C-alpha cells in the first residue's frame, strides 16, 4: 500500500533513471517506493499540519504536554534521518509517542510522509542514492522500534478483535516499506497480521493463504512492471477463496489497474485500506481465469515482446552506438547503465501491452524525461531509442501505437 495518494500518474521504475546511464548513478528502489507514491493528498500523509488525523477517535488520554505538531516533528525527524542519526530519530519518535501522538499518526503522517519526501528529494536530485537507501533503512528501524513501544500494544488492545489479514508485496517487488506501514496500522486497529514482506514468491504466498485462510490479502506493488506478477497473485488468491485488496503506485493513481486485474478492492493509502477492510470484503465469486480479465492478450504481443526483450535491447544498443558517437565512447559502466535503461523501457512496453493501458508507457517515458532533465541530460537518446524500438516492432500494431503515442507526447513535453 502506498502511504499517500499519488497525484501524478507516474508509475515508473525506480531504476528507470537508467536512462540516466546517459548520466550516472542509479536511483535506488527504496526511494522509488516513495517517489512513485508522489505528493500526498490532503488528509493523508505528510503535511497535514493539523496534528493527529481526524479519522480516528482520540485513543490516548489527553497528555500533559501536547504532542509536537506533525509538521514540526516531521521536519526534525527529517534532519535526523537524512543525517543517519538513528539515536536521535528514535528519540524523536518515541518522544512524540510519549507526548501523546497517536501511533497511527506517527506511522502514516510522520514516518510515511518522510519516506515520500525521501523519494521526492531523490527524484529532484537533491539527495544521493546512498543517502536515500540509508534514510529508508533508518526509517525501517524507527518503525521496528516504535512498533515495539507500549503505546502500540496499548492502542491495539483498545480495538475490538478483528480477523486475520495477510500483507505481502508482489513477487519481485522490493519496496516493502508501504506494506510494512500498512501491516503496522492494521495491527494497531486490532487485526492479526501476517506480514510476508518484500519479494514474496507467489507459490509461497498461495501456500500461506491455504494454510491460514485469512479474511483478505492486502497486496502491495509499487512498480508497474510487477503488474503481470500481481495479476497472477490476485487470481491465485481469489481462486484460493481469499479476497484481495490492492494498493501501491503500480495500480495507478485511481486504482484502475487494480480493477483491471480483478482485485476485489483498492485503496489509495493505508488508512483507506484499513477502513475498507474494516467493512469486510465479500468472498470472491466463482473463480475466473486470468485471461478473462485481459482478452487483448490473445494477440500475443506481450509474449512476443517480453520473450525477445534481450534481442530488442541489443538491437537498440547497436543502433545507438551506430548513430551516436557519444554512446560509442561510453565507459563500460555507462554502457551497462544504458543497457539497463533500455531493458527497463522494453519491460515497461511489455507491461503496457499486458495491461492494454497505453498511458502507462507514456507516463513512464514522461517520468524518465523529467529525471533526465533534473540531471541536465538531453532526452534525444530516449526519443531515438523509442524510434528504433518502433521500427523493430513494426509488425505488432499495439506496440507501434504505444510507441507512437509516447513519441508524440515526448515531442509535446519537450517543446
Amino acid at each position, binding site marked *: 500500500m502506498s502511504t499517500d495518494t499519488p497525484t501524478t500518474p507516474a508509475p515508473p521504475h525506480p531504476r528507470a533513471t537508467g536512462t540516466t546511464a546517459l548520466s550516472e548513478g542509479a536511483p535506488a528502489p527504496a526511494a522509488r517506493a516513495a517517489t512513485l507514491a508522489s505528493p500526498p493528498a490532503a488528509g493523508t500523509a505528510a503535511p497535514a499540519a493539523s496534528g493527529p488525523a481526524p479519522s480516528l477517535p482520540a485513543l490516548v488520554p489527553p497528555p500533559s504536554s501536547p504532542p509536537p505538531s506533525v509538521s514540526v516533528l516531521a521536519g526534525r525527524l527529517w534532519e535526523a534521518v537524512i543525517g543517519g542519526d538513528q539515536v536521535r530519530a528514535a528519540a524523536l519518535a518515541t518522544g512524540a509517542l510519549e507526548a501523546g501522538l497517536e501511533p497511527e499518526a506517527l506511522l502514516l503522517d510522520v514516518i510515511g510522509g518522510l519516506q515520500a519526501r525521501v523519494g521526492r528529494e531523490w527524484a529532484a536530485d537533491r539527495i544521493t542514492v546512498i543517502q536515500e537507501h540509508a534514510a529508508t533503512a533508518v526509517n525501517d528501524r*524507527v518503525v521496528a522500534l516504535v512498533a515495539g513501544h507500549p503505546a502500540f500494544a496499548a492502542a491495539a488492545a483498545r480495538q475490538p478483535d478483528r480477523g486475520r489479514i495477510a500483507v505481502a508485496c508482489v513477487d519481485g517487488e522490493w519496496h516493502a516499506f508501504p506494506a510494512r506501514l500498512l501491516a503496522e496500522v492494521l495491527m494497531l486497529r486490532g487485526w492479526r497480521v501476517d506480514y510476508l514482506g518484500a519479494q514474496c514468491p507467489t507459490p509461497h504466498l498461495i501456500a500461506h493463504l491455504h494454510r491460514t485462510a485469512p479474511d483478505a490479502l492486502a497486496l502491495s506493488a509499487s512498480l508497474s512492471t510487477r503488474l503481470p506478477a500481481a495479476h497472477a497473485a490476485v487470481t491465485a488468491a481469489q481462486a484460493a477463496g481469499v479476497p484481495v485488496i490492492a494498493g501501491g503506485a503500480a495500480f495507478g493513481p485511481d486504482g484502475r489497474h487494480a480493477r483491471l486485474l480483478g482485485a476485489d478492492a483498492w485503496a489509495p493509502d493505508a488508512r483507506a485500506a484499513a477502513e475498507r477492510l474494516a467493512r469486510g470484503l465479500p468472498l470472491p465469486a466463482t473463480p475466473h481465469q486470468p485471461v478473462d480479465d485481459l482478452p487483448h492478450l490473445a494477440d500475443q504481443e506481450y509474449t512476443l515482446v517480453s520473450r525477445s526483450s*534481450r534481442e530488442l535491447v541489443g538491437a537498440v544498443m547497436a543502433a545507438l552506438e551506430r548513430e551516436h558517437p557519444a554512446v560509442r565512447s561510453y565507459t563500460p559502466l555507462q554502457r551497462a547503465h544504458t543497457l539497463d535503461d533500455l531493458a527497463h523501457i522494453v519491460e515497461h512496453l511489455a507491461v503496457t501491452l499486458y495491461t492494454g493501458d497505453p498511458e502507462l508507457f507514456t507516463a513512464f517515458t514522461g517520468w524518465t524525461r523529467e529525471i533526465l532533465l533534473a540531471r541536465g541530460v538531453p532526452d534525444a537518446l530516449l526519443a531515438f531509442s523509442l524510434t528504433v524500438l518502433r521500427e523493430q516492432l513494426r509488425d505488432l500494431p499495439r506496440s507501434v501505437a504505444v510507441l507512437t503515442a509516447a513519441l508524440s507526447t515526448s515531442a509535446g513535453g519537450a517543446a
Partner: protein
Amino acid sequence: MASSSSTATTEREFLAASPYPVVVLGPDGELLHSSRSARLLLEGPATGGVPPWLRRAQQALADGARPDTVRHTHPVAGPVEAHPVPRPDGSTVWWLVVPEGCAGLLPRTAGDGACDWELLTRLSGLLLSSLNVDRILETVVRQAALHLADAAVVVAPGNGRTLRLVTCLRGGDPAHVQQRADPAEVPGLAEALQGFPPVPSRWIDPDATPRWLVPAGFGRVGSVLVTPLPGHGVPAGALVLLRAAGGGPFASEEEVFARLFATRAGAAVSAAVMYSEQAAVTDLLMRELLPPRLEHLDGVDYAGGYRASVDRDRIGGDFYDVHPAADPGGETLALLGDVSGKGLEAAVMTGKVRNTLHALLPLADDHGRVLNLLNRALLTSHHTRFASLVLASVRREDDRVRVRLSAAGHPAPMVLRADGRVTDSTTLGSIVGVLPEATTCTDTVLLDPGEACLLYSDGITEAKGGPTGREQFGDHRLRQALAQCAGLPAEAIVERIQMLAAQWLRDGRHDDMAVMVIAAPPRGHLPVVGERRGHTT
C-alpha cells in the same frame, strides 16, 4: 385420405410425443420441430435451441456431406449419437440416441433449483478453490443453506469428546462451534465421523433431533437430513440439512442433489485435511532449516538474506548462523556456507552441518580444529555431499570490531571500508567433506565504525543474467555494488546486494544465494529491537 396440412399436424404431434429425442432441422440448421425429450437434451444457451455441434453437422449435410452418425459428449447426459435422415425438402430428421439412458431421465433444469446441474458445477468450483479445511467447511454450509435447506450444519471430525460444528442459517455467515456432545445421539453420525462403515443419508425424526445440532436462532425444526461426507480414507464429517417447520419435506430429487453435493464436499474436505496435515509437517521440519533472523548482538550488527534456487522453496543448500558468545566479552561465531547440491536434500544436509557446528562451538577459538572435526563428521556420514563455508569469530573492542575469518573452499569475504574502498580478506582453505584433512589460513580484519564485512555464497557471483542473459554477476560487480554501500546499515547492504543480484537475474534461473553482513555500528547507532508480535515468515 387426410389433407397434407393435417398430415403435418399429426406428424408434429407424433414427433413431440416421441419418447426418443428427435429434432427436425432446416437446411441451415434452424429448428423446425423437436420432441419434448430432445428439448430437454438440447436446452442450453445455444441460439434457437440448436447446439452449435448439431447446427454444424446440419450445415455440413446441406453442403453435400454424406449423411452419417455424429457423436457428441453432452456435459450431463454423456455421449450422444445423432443419426440424420435427410428429407426431400432439404430438411433433416435427427434421431438422438443417448446410450446411457433416455432423455426423459435427465434432470430438470432451473425451476425450483433443487436439481440444477449448472448449480452443482458452480458449487463444485467453489469447493475446489480452497485447500483450507475451515474455509471449505464454511463454503459447504453457506452454499447448502442457500440452495438446499433453511440451515446447514457440518459436523467435522474433532478430537476427543468435543465435536466441531460449522453452522449457517440461510443467507447468514457461517459460525464455528465447539460442542461437548455424543454423536451417537444422531443415527449414522458416529459412523460418518469415523469415516467407517459407510452409511446412507437418512431422515431423522425432527422431534428427536438433539438441541446441539440445531444452529442458534433456528426456530422449530420441520425436517432433518443427515448425509455423510465421503472422505476417501480420511473422515470428513457429515452434512446436516435442516428445514423449518412448515417448509415441507425434502423431495427425492433434492435428496439426490444433496448426496451429489455431499460427495463433492467430502472430496474437497478430505483433500484439504490431507494438505493441511502435510503442510503442518513440512512447516515443522522447515522451521529448523530456515535461516535465522539476524540482528544486533553484543555491539555488532548482523544482517542476512537468503533466496533459495527454487522460488517455491524457502530453503536450500546455503546456510548461515550467528551463535552468541557463551560468556560476556567472548567471541560471537558467525558462519555462512554452501552444501553441494540444491533443494530439499541439500537443505537437510545444511541442518546437519549447522547442528555439528553448533556442537563444536566451545572449540570456536580454533577455526582449524572446528573445520577438521566437521570434515571428519562429513567424511564418516553416509552422504557424499561436501560443503564450503566461512567461519567468522567476531568481537567488539571499544569502537571497533575484530573479525577472525577462516574460509574453507569458500569465496573470501569482502571488507567495505568507511571511504568506500572494498578489499578482499586473505583467508583461504580447502572444502570440507572431501579430503582427509581440512586446511585453512585465518585472516583477521578490524572494522572501524561504519565498516562492514560481507560473507556471500557463489550463487551471488555466479548469477547469470544481465542484458545478454548469459553473463555472470561476477566478483567485480559485487565489489562495485558493495563500494556504493559505504555507510549503510547492515540490513540495507544486504537488501541492496540481493536486489542488484535479483535485477541482474531478472527471471533467469539461479542457484541458492546467501549474503551476510557483519558491521561495526556507525556512531549514533540504534540497535534493532527483537522481532515482534504478529509477524510470520
